[in-house]
């Protein structure tokens, strides 16, 4: 009985997971077309340098977001300090700014010709320096862009421990630091690891920030193979190595992970520790400083730029840009969440099947692929399906798929499945087998079980996953740029086109609209998070 049912669910889960993972397969199949000459040049001349600079970047960014995200989350959840309440939410806001926008703002301010350095040289008589030399500046930029991932997940984890913490602290009389290292941190470790993992995958796939800093990473080689040597095959082969790295990262993270969640279930607003006097103000200053640097300062710069150019830049076109951005964002988030929920539903069949676990894992690997590699992978995949179809007497599907938003939505789903899935799966893990068993004993059908037990319990994870995907889709550039049909320009594209020409003042206008859009989404998240913590 169970076996017969499992065949059906196996087929369906496999079908959806493998479809989502299609770009991964296309990329992997590139090894069928070896190209020795270019590989010889790469491995002889640039690969070793690229690998070490990529490792330095990953290490720096990983450690950086781990420290910053964890410390911020701990302070905000556990310690009462001036401004803590609104900073807890304000620290999410950098999510709304695309990484490359933050990078061009930082360079505009801190590069040799940026006014921070000009002021340092003129007013303080300090020597100027090349901020892009070495790797510290780009590491810092990535840390400020991506810390919210760690912050978000770790914060939720700390919140769930809080009550016990108060108890434990009170009973044992342990110092706050000791409690942090011996209780809080070990408990939050899975959440921290999950946040760092997402950050590392984003960093691996980034092209915008690294090209503004002219910092060479593994992705540089992918683009060089494609753009300079016109070898899409070697580009795909290199990209498949990225996927492999991502796979290993996920594997190790999975081993160390329990249930990382993006959302909290906070029962009380009381915090275990009260900071007083100077300590309180120093903590305030630190947290506020991070907020300033990662959000307020770049926003201020964007507003100044945008203000000076809004008259030139604003036109009726913006209604179209906003409309297409919204439609893509919302529909991609809906579809991704629906599929992720389907894949994450607790089931006996899944538990017993290594095959199912593996195909689902595959479906989440697209996150490590640079957006344009994913896009080209999809184009190739569809083309292959057409070729096979024609071979068997059918017709090419290219003309239906190319130039419609189907392909673009497909790309978003493949790329951001990891985010939605990990959030939703974490909430599914919360559902204890005893729920299922008792429901079954009471004679509930599986459909009823899902509607009345599983879905309500998974709701916080579904909402959090959906919103994160929405923010990411809104910011997404490379896949959108390549796959969009006529008339589907988005705010991210407008921002990129203007900033690529060095027209930062005008680029600030669409960038600001995007930030407002993202901030609205984050506000929705905040509202739902609060609501769900009240009800659970």
């Amino acid at each position, binding site marked *: 009985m169970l076996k017969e*049912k499992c065949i*059906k*669910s196996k087929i*369906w889960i496999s079908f959806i997971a493998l479809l989502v993972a299609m770009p991964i397969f296309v990329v992997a199949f590139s090894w069928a077309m070896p190209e020795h000459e270019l590989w010889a*040049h790469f491995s002889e*001349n*640039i690969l070793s340098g690229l690998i070490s600079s990529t490792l330095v970047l990953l290490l720096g960014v990983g450690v950086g977001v781990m420290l910053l995200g964890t410390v911020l989350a701990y302070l905000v959840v556990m310690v009462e300090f001036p401004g803590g309440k609104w900073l807890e939410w304000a620290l999410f806001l950098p999510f709304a700014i695309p990484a490359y926008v933050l990078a061009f703002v930082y360079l505009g301010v801190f*590069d*040799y*010709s940026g006014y921070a350095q*000009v002021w340092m040289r003129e007013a303080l008589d300090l020597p*100027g320096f*090349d901020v*892009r*030399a070495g790797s510290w500046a780009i590491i810092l930029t990535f840390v400020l862009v991506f810390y919210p991932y760690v912050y978000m997940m770790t914060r939720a984890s700390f919140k769930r421990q809080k009550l016990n913490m108060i108890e434990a602290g009170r009973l044992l009389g342990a110092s706050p630091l000791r409690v942090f290292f011996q209780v809080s941190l070990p408990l939050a470790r899975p959440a921290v690891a999950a946040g760092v993992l997402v950050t590392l995958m984003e960093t691996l796939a980034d092209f915008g920030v690294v*090209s503004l*800093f*002219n910092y060479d990473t593994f992705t*540089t080689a992918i683009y*060089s193979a*494609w*753009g*300079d040597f*016109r070898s899409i095959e070697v580009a795909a082969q290199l990209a498949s190595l990225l996927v492999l790295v991502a796979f290993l990262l996920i594997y190790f993270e999975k081993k160390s992970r329990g249930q990382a969640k993006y959302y909290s279930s906070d029962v009380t607003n009381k915090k275990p520790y009260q900071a007083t006097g100077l300590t309180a103000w120093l903590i305030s200053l630190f947290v506020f400083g991070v907020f300033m640097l990662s959000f307020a300062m770049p926003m201020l710069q964007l507003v100044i730029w945008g203000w000076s150019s809004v008259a030139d830049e604003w036109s009726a076109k913006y209604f179209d840009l906003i409309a*297409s951005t919204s*439609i893509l964002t919302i*529909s991609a988030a*809906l*579809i991704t969440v*629906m599929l992720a929920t*389907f894949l994450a539903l607790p089931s006996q069949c899944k538990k017993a099947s290594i095959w199912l676990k593996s195909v689902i894992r595959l479906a989440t690997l697209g996150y490590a692929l640079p957006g*344009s590699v994913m896009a*080209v992978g999809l*184009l190739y995949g569809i*083309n292959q399906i057409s070729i096979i179809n024609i071979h068997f007497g059918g017709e*090419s599907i*290219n*003309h239906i798929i*190319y*130039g*419609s*938003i*189907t392909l673009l*939505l497909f790309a978003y789903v493949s790329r951001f499945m990891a985010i939605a899935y990990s959030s939703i799966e974490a909430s599914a893990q919360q559902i204890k087998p005893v729920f299922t068993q008792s429901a079954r004993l009471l004679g509930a059908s*599986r*459909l009823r079980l*899902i509607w009345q037990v599983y879905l309500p319990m998974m709701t916080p994870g579904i909402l959090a996953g959906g919103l994160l995907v929405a923010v990411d889709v809104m910011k997404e550039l490379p896949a959108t*740029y*390549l796959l*969009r*049909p*006529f*008339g*589907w*320009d988005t705010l991210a*594209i407008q921002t990129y*086109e*203007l900033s690529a*020409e*060095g027209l930062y003042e005008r680029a600030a206008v669409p960038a600001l609209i995007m930030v407002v859009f993202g901030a609205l989404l984050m506000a929705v998240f905040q509202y739902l998070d609060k609501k769900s913590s009240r009800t659970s």
Partner: protein
Amino acid sequence: MDMKKIISSTIVFSVLTVSSITAVQATYSSPEVQAVSDETVTVYSSRKEHLIKPLFEAFTKDTGIKVEYLTGKGGALIERLKLEGDNTQADMFMTVDAGNLWYAGSQDLFQSVQTETIKSNIPVHLRDPKGLWTGLSVRARTIVYSTDRVKEQDLSTYANLATDQWKDRLCLRTSKKVYSKSLVASMIYNQGEDKTGDIISGWVNNLSATPNAKDSHVMNSILAGQCDVGIVNTYYFGRLIAKTPDSPLKLFWANQDTTGVHVNVSGAGVTKHASNKEGAVQLLEWLSSAKAQVIYGSLNKEYPANQKVASDDVVSEWGSFKQDEMNLSQAGLLQARAVRLMQIKGYR
């Protein structure tokens, strides 16, 4: 059985979502759909929207033919064109850099267009020998220097910037940008790979900053005193001067006693599978006409490809110069070797 219900309801829901999205898309893009008729030319362009829109609007006004366009990155659009094959909507592909044009030609994406109008408007070294693509605007890549810290008589050639007198005084744009690639390709064509390799090593040795992402950053660095001299496309200089006319920066025409200033083009070709070939040819001819060439020049401070048209006033002030007349398809042919050389020599 239950699983089946769930699955079928999921499918129904997905189908509903997708179809409602498609419906929204259809309503949303209906003006464009209506516009697709014989009287529309569809263009894929890696030139940014704000640089092509005024041109297309003027064309529509003159001829009544509408132009629909999609912008994107050169390499990515080429890939899209390749995969779309004869299903493509594009009648014309427009891009910057001769290397990109050459590559699109080598991938069999263009058809030959050699009308008398184009032949008489555009000089031969700015066109593909087989007529696959036509250069439409000329960008000169030359030396820019600080008038405060550099004497004009110290400047001469691109190669000269590799000598010791420029140690820690040079800023360059990243080697990953097509303009750097085509410049080095032209140097390989003129002087051979060994000599070019030595020049690149000299440049790298003279750099006072990590190569910049953009030409505008190169000039900002010179203004801020991080370096004294650099190599840029002239229109970036034009934009800077338009904003801050008093900047202590000047252009120097490189290689005047030797091969001439390296020039590159932005250009276009009619796609092999164009459904409106006539309209596309008409657009191409119109873009090479005096009227369009004036708009090109004033929009982006580039040089007209049509030699009968005078440069924009601002551009004329920079003086006239001798161009490197290497046929630009060579830049395309040699680009991969140029990149390999720059990667070997550590020019980032």
